[in-house]
């Protein structure tokens, strides 16, 4: 029998950036919203994130970057997911991301970008509306 399970998300910090205040707050907000949450910890390469996401069978990855390398790191995660036949895992991002970079990131397959000023509720609602938990 097929049964919907809870939404499973991974919050991840790609690259060398150590700013994890936002990522950890988002992880808590996802947990409080009833999602199952995996937090990658800091200093992960895109490949390490994708490997862990597949292992953990998540529905979505939320990437956080505050050190300017998002134009390289976010698309690298999307590309690596596709290479590993895991293109169904959705990717969203957040952090210090200039307005003009957002279209470039969306074109590269990042579904949504949340910049400072987004409320926790906005982000949680987006996930509820756009991410379907895999059936098991």
């Amino acid at each position: 029998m097929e049964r919907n399970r809870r939404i499973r998300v991974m919050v991840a910090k790609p690259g060398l950036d150590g700013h994890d205040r936002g990522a950890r707050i988002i992880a808590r907000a996802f947990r409080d919203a009833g999602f199952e949450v995996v937090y990658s910890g800091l200093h992960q390469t895109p490949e390490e994130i994708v490997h862990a996401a597949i292992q953990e069978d998540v529905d979505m990855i939320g990437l956080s970057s505050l050190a300017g390398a998002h134009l390289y790191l976010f698309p690298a995660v999307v590309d690596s997911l596709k290479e590993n036949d895991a293109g169904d895992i959705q990717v969203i991002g957040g952090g210090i991301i200039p307005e003009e970079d957002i279209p470039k990131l969306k074109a590269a397959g990042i579904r949504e970008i949340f910049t400072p000023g987004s409320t926790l509720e906005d982000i949680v609602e987006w996930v509820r509306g756009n991410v379907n938990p895999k059936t098991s």
Partner: protein
Amino acid sequence: MSLTYNREMLEEAREAYDRWNREVEETFEKHPERLKRFSTVSDMEIQRIYTPADVQDQDFNRDIGAPGQYPFTRGVQPTMYRGRLWTMRMFAGLGSAGDTNTRFHHLVKAGQTGLSTAFDMPTLMGYDTDSPRARGECGKCGVAIDTVRDMEDLFEGLPINRITTSMTINPPAPVIWGMYIAMAELRGIDRRKLGGTIQNDMLKEFIAQKTFMCPPKPSLRLITDTVEFGTKEVPRWNTISISGYHIREAGSTAVQELAFTLGDGIAYVEAALNRGLDVDDFAPRLSFFFNSHLDFFEETAKFRAARRMWARIMEERFHAKNQRSLWLRFHTQTAGCSLTAQQPYNNIVRTALQALAAVMGGTQSLHTNSLDEVLAIPTEEAATIALRTQQIIAEECGAANSIDPLGGSYMVEALTDRLEDEAFEIINKIDDMGGMLSAIEKNFPQQEIADAAYRYQQQIDRKEKTVVGVNKYANDEESLPVEILQIDEELERLQIERTVRIRNDRDNQKTRECLEKLEEACVEGHNVMPPIIEAAKAYATLQEMCDVFRKVFGEYRDPGIY
């Protein structure tokens, strides 16, 4: 013991304020107060009014005194800003060493009085630009330094024998400092003449900023090597900048910032004492670095409390005799986390108020954030406005005319006492856990800060705390555009080429020998600084030296708690 306020005066004041309180209560019954609860940005409840009764236990000589006198509540130097203004030290680093050098020259020409270097992420983590872990990050949030050649370009034409240099570097601090000393010596400048600061505060990295390389214990050993070397060989250098800035940016309260920072300071002093150093030989070169956040009075009180607490800790706990060992000298940066991407020009005003609080608190040096720092590395124009903000505070508004001008304010004195008491409670808790190192291993400060950060975000979401332009007074139409500084994507390729060329051109036999000597020092417990300086002069790269540390001491991984 002589209390500041005598009993008779306190009694009269109490009667007067009781009468006043009855009157306003009547009014507020008809028209309630604006908020149910008034509190600081740290969520500390603030009274309707402060009176002499709130500082009735204060003993003027014991608790306040004069500037330059124990417990230094009013300032470390007797003359403070009447003698010399604080050092205006703007943090800068972008792109290549040459680009940053150009920015340094611009800032010095604009009247800046000290240098402060921001490194890029690979440099901060001890990787060369061509490391696979460094992809996409070169020059993005600071300058890339791979070899002493980059260090030479960075300081080209700058008078480093006269101007002091601060370098925000942590796990690879011994290596970057060694490259700086090597660069100076290659220019013919005596290391004893060099003045400046390396941040070199690993404990707060594990707690808050999260750039790490080796586990806590060997990290503390490397720091102690630099303290020992500086004490003997580079006497004008501040070898640790014990930092609360990042703790606050990670979301702590003001009390937590005080407690965890001074708790880290206690751990460094203990480590140096265990090395056999005399407290009065090294303590005068310890410096501090705090955040100046949004709540003006809480911040002013925090700086005053920090000075008094450190003086008491150094005298009562470590029995320091030299007055300078008791001084808490500090750098301040305005709160990056308080800036908003929305309506970014408002950030100029936030920064000005935060800078004023730092000046009211008696800071020794100050970085003011640029309005666009919430979006990217500041443009030259934005950095200049931030510097001008300091100059206006210093020379136009009268804030620097008198020393500790808020001293004696019932509110500021009461907050100073309260912050001190609450911070000492946390320090006692850390002592009970066996000291800061074991508190960190138990994730105690990390968890406390994460809780505070989450609480604050929820308060913003519920609009219990106002963020102008974000959860109140928001503008739907886009506001004035801000020009954003872009880092050239070509930079990474050029920097890699340059580093590869240096590796090919150097005397590799000699470099290898130097790295072996460094490894030997790590293993045998000898001071690592002399072999680092030699290796830097032989063009060993940052990562080659850091890899020695990783090999001998192992690597620390983020426990990933939230």
